[in-house]
């Protein structure tokens, strides 16, 4: 009896902060955003309910092209981050000695030490035509005229991979860490060679970590702002930039809200598709890491 009361009370006390947080700062703002996104401006300070903002989006190829471009580049970044990050995670979790492993793991967190801005700033210093890389290459005699590495999609992709790769490595390290070494040994012992063991044992085992890393990386990439803006070239538009423009340069909160919602819906759709393809659930992946 008494214990039951205490349990109920503590449940309520613990649930309250959670509910306040999720409801006031996540659910309600999104509902609000949705509400604004279905208002159409018909005159100064006059609005009407309607789907005009969404229709607008679909009617104008520039917008959905940008969204699709953002999505596909984000997928590319995700794939690259996985490809580049997996060997690193594997090295940290399975090959490095006990002492180096902590240090390596920490070194992976290096990019986290400074903001997006400084990272982009650093890349600009490195990549520009008169920047460090081009100058050193010239100095070394590899090239005779300076080369511009900045202001193109490749720079954006590299900058994004740089920014997000740690969010790929961390969950991978933690799942691989949890994998008993004898599982790998068993894979070899039963006759598998390196690629077989990788494909049949290690990757399936690490799947929750892979999916979790991919989701976070994809979302971060699609939602990033500074890196594509600062490193991008003449043609590289990014959807968040467009949202920003709607809100700030064009004072158009209504279509900005609609764009925001579309970004959320689009990325969620991609994530949902990824989960379906890999046979995982949000609960078994992101929540676990």
């Amino acid at each position, binding site marked *: 009896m008494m214990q039951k009361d205490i349990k109920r009370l503590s449940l309520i006390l613990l649930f309250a902060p959670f509910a306040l947080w999720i409801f006031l700062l996540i659910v309600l703002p999104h509902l609000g955003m949705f509400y604004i996104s279905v208002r159409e401006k018909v005159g100064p300070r006059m609005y009407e309910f309607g789907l005009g903002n969404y229709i607008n989006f679909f009617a104008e190829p520039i917008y959905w092209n940008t969204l699709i471009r953002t999505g596909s580049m984000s997928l590319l970044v995700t794939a690259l981050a996985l490809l580049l990050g997996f060997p690193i995670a594997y090295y940290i979790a399975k090959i490095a000695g006990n002492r180096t492993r902590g240090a390596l793991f920490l070194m992976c967190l290096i990019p986290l030490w400074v903001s997006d801005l400084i990272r982009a700033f650093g890349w600009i210093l490195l990549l520009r035509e008169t920047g460090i890389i081009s100058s050193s290459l010239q100095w070394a005699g590899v090239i005779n005229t300076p080369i511009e590495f900045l202001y193109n999609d490749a720079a954006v992709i590299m900058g994004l991979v740089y920014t997000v790769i740690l969010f790929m490595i961390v969950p991978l390290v933690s799942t691989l860490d949890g994998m008993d070494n004898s599982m790998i040994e068993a894979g070899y012992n039963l006759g598998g060679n390196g690629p077989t063991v990788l494909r049949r044992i290690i990757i399936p085992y690490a799947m929750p970590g892979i999916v979790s890393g991919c989701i976070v990386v994809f979302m971060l990439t699609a939602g990033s702002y500074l890196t594509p803006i600062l490193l991008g*070239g003449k*043609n590289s538009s990014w959807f968040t930039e467009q949202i920003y423009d709607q809100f700030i340069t064009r004072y*158009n909160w209504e279509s900005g809200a609609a764009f925001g919602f579309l970004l959320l819906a689009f990325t969620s759709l991609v994530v949902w598709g990824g989960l379906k393809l890999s046979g995982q659930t949000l609960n078994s992946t992101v929540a676990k890491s």
Partner: protein
Amino acid sequence: ETLRLLTWGSYAPDELVKKFEEKYPDITVEVTFSNNEEMIAKLRATGGAGFDLAQPSHDRIYAVQQEYNIYKPLDLSKINTDVMQDKLLEGVKANTTIDGEVYAVPHQWGTSGLMANKTMAPDVKAWGDLCDPQYKGKTSMRLKRTILLGMAFDMGEDPFAAYADLDKYQSILDKVADKLIACKDNLKAYWKGGDDLSAMMMSGEIVASETWDSTAYKLYGENKDIVFVPPKTGALAWIDTFAIPRKGEADDAAYKWINFVLEPENVKIMSASTGAIAAVEGGKDLLPDDKKAAVNAAFTDADIDNLKFFANIPAGVEDMEGKTLEKIKAATGSE
């Protein structure tokens, strides 16, 4: 009390702030750097709260105020309007009077135009020269409304006149867009701020660009080959103003600041930092020597007469221009 300034980068040099705080020991100054769009967006979100003094450009006040009601009328009696250059004061007042109330007074003015490295790009004279194939890959511009307007003038249109007829304006924009899309190939990159523009210009990565005059003056100080070039259709002139947000909480301090920065010895400090000309009588003479030299190197009297002041932006134009800019940005195939 605190005076929260919402202003352009470099419009509140530390030296001046310190001096102001020494003069008024009970006021501390907090500065937020911004630009026209962000100032408006921010004040819109706050309903005109959070800042005590803003400095939007003269063309960006009227429509915004009507739509979002973010400024409060000025009490001109508290402002030393006497020191201001009449022509500019009247111009701004005319631009920002709603229901008989004045919402802004001028602070500094300057131009947007071209910048060129004389030795490497001696022939750059007009907006359109940025698209000259001989400078392929060596020019730049900012993908904002300035270049739309400049290019429109360059193509023989008068965009400001077209504000009265938005359909006409749209057709001008379409033409400009085509031109700028075609021009894309010629550019190295769009610059986003004074920073990357300076870096590209100084390093010789580009030889000519659309520019703020102040940036050009700054570079002239470093390299005498880099000069500001008023386009032959006329440099675009802007006047940055003082306006008080509707929920400003330190009006007195704001007025004190306005009057303070218009004092001649303070104008010198300000202009040294901003590279813009104060809207006071003899403003140009209060520029520091190197900037004055740069202005003189750039402008003839004819150029000054030829200035095209930005016209008030009617509601809806931002949207049209925004779309055009997006279109240009999104256009590919030129690379």
